[in-house]
């Protein structure tokens, strides 16, 4: 007994070091596992609060830029609306109202912290449970996808960025019904990679990649990127690189997608398992 105590005292720094190092490594491994709520997250009230404060200053400098973005989006939506009006004239929409009911509900949130230079990136927003944000909601911009909600606290939430090893987003090619996966290899925040596209998809450089209809997280058809380069080897696609339409380094407001039918779809699909 005496010897054990002596041993512990003699090696107390080594033991303290090992203990703390193991704790840190457990956190690291946990962070590389998808779909696990994390202890280390900036969605807690202290970190979120500090980021909100420091963001107020930054906002001030970004106002002009932000106004321009909003004006652009307004124009885009106005154009979309004027197109809609002409097609609403056909009676069909009014008749089959239950089919055309609202499927998505959007919540706007402000990015208070954004990382994009690391292997696994997260964003923090200033909305949380209180505002109706829940885990696994999609996050979009008018012209692109940002990621998926990861951890939520009463007032804040973190987004698993598209720029993360655990991010796999279902995408398709515009005007074509083939689907694949959008992933990120960690190199540059301007580009992402496409996986699992079948040969039949007939991809070409310059094709627009949009969100696919297979995912309940995102509305179908939001443009995500443009194919920049691709190789074809043994009848399989290799190294399909996509230039992202969103500038992930410069985000301020994002839309959280609440799919009203998500629960129903998921319950239905659960029956098959």
């Amino acid at each position: 007994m005496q010897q054990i105590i002596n041993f512990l005292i003699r090696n107390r720094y080594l033991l303290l070091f090992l203990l703390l190092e193991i704790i840190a490594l457990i956190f690291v491994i946990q962070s590389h596992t998808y779909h696990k709520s994390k202890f280390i997250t900036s969605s807690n009230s202290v970190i979120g609060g500090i980021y909100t404060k420091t963001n107020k200053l930054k906002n001030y400098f970004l106002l002009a830029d932000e106004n321009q973005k909003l004006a652009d989006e307004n124009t885009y939506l106005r154009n979309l609306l004027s197109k809609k009006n002409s097609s609403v004239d056909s009676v069909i929409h009014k008749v089959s109202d239950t089919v055309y009911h609202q499927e998505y509900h959007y919540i706007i949130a402000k990015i208070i912290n954004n990382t994009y230079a690391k292997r696994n990136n997260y964003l923090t927003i200033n909305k949380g449970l209180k505002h109706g944000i829940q885990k696994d909601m999609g996050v979009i911009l008018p012209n692109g996808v940002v990621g998926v909600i990861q951890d939520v606290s009463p007032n804040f939430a973190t987004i698993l960025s598209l720029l993360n090893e655990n991010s796999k987003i279902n995408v398709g090619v515009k005007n074509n019904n083939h689907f694949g996966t959008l992933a990120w290899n960690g190199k540059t925040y301007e580009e992402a990679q496409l996986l699992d596209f079948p040969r039949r998809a007939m991809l070409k450089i310059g094709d627009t990649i949009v969100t696919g209809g297979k995912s309940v997280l995102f509305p179908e058809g939001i443009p995500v990127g443009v194919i920049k380069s691709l190789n074809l080897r043994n009848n399989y696609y290799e190294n399909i690189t996509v230039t992202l339409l969103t500038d992930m380094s410069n985000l301020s407001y994002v839309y959280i997608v609440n799919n009203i039918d998500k629960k129903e779809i998921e319950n239905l699909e659960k029956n098959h398992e």
Partner: protein
Amino acid sequence: MNNIFFTNAFRFIGLIFLQILIFNNINLFGYLNPYPYLAFVFLFPYKKERSSLLLLSFLIGLTLDFFTDSGGVHAASTLFIAYFRLYFVKLILRKSEFEYFTFQITSVSVDKVLLYFFVLIFIHHFLMFSLEFFDLQSFFEILKRTILSTIFTFLVTTFGYYILVSKKK
């Protein structure tokens, strides 16, 4: 005693704020950031009792992990260099065990101090990027980022050291 306590508490908080508000947002060439918060480990008093060094180094890393959602990579790598600091002091600064507990970093010749900084920064960054990527296939990406960030951190730390620390002696 109190003076040392307040200096280090102030340094702890100051370095964290500098890191998250300024240095984490530089993103040179789109991905390079310096990590001068490591100065906390270099400057922490060299004394026999080392548990406060280990605990505080772990904590400063963990705090940054909270801010940047990086799991525990900062905590693990900062704690690592904090523990092995002693061996590099012996190896590079050529201080014996006995001297170690009395010497001041500002009293050592500049070239040796800089080499000491450089080696510790390199080890820290290599560990940090390895844990962040967690993937053998990305070895060259890890090495590239380690080398470039080490140079960046080294320049910022050395600059800060000259301006703020070495004048005091």
